[in-house]
């Protein structure tokens, strides 16, 4: 039963990936829609970033002095000035670890 469920979930996920690429004719989208679509990264990724920082594993809001907020601020600063993905991730993780393990 679980296997069957996974396969259905996989097929649905695949359709989400494939529909707009292979099934929908791009000419159906108007110019305004295409212009709005250039904002997709900015409109989607904060929905992964914000909960990943501000909500803990139990689904509740973190305290305002949580080390994850500090780690995220460091990552934003390092990322902005270094333009380097690895530096962004590592600086965020390390500043987070320094607080939870050393302080």
């Amino acid at each position, binding site marked *: 039963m*679980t*296997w*069957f*469920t*996974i*396969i*259905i*979930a*996989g097929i*649905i*996920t*695949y359709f*989400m*990936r*494939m*529909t*707009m*690429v*292979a099934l*929908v004719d*791009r000419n159906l989208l108007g110019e*305004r829609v295409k212009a*709005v*679509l250039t*904002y*997709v*990264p*900015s*409109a*989607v*990724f*904060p*929905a*992964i*970033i*914000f*909960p*990943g*920082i501000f*909500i803990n*594993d139990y*689904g509740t*809001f973190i305290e305002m002095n949580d080390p*994850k907020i500090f*780690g*995220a601020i460091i*990552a*934003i600063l390092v*990322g*902005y000035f270094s333009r*380097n*993905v*690895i530096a*962004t*991730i590592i600086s*965020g*993780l390390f500043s*987070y*670890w320094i607080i*939870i393990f050393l302080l």
Partner: protein
Amino acid sequence: MLSKRQIFSKGILAVAPHMFSVIPFGIVCGAIGIELGFSPVLVYAMSIIIFGGASQIVFLQLLSGGASALIAVTSVGVINSRHLLYGAVLSEYLEKLSFIKKLLISYLVVDQGFAESNKFFQKNRNETHLHYHLLGSGGTLWVCWQISTLAGIILGSFVPEELGLKFAVPLTFIAIVVQDIKKLDHVIVMITCGLSSLLFFDAPFKSYIIISPIIALFVAALVLRLKK
């Protein structure tokens, strides 16, 4: 004009730095599946059949918590519905591919690959073999996802939970959008999305992940109108 191989390598290199978050997250994903009591084969098969990090964890957590199969499948569908947006953006650059190639390449579209290949596409519209970038980025992410979830399944509870490795996920996406905080219109869209995601976090089926982008895109449409 770049060759197919050059573009393919650029795709690999573009996502390679994201491995610092994809690999830890994959390990956590595999480990959680085993911890929840599912068979290793089943946990691993999800990495091939679903191939979507967060949705795999949610799926197993729901089933182990006694939720019905319908709820688990619906949640995976809702969480992964953001790929409809990625597809709509990418279709511009993949238009000329044959139907079969479109069907095959779609399987490889995931968040980081979409983000990095989209950046490349915007700057190199006139290249002929653009889709090789997506093959390179998506293919790399696929291989690393398979290896890291397998590693998590094998290592299981050896992965110390205190490390908070899941925190690498928001960090990797910060790295993707951080250069856009220079642009006021993008900042407005990002903050709209982020605040909406917190506001709707408890909406059923994890639907905040698609509700907040839709709200943010409406705001983007408004911003575009004001800019004119």
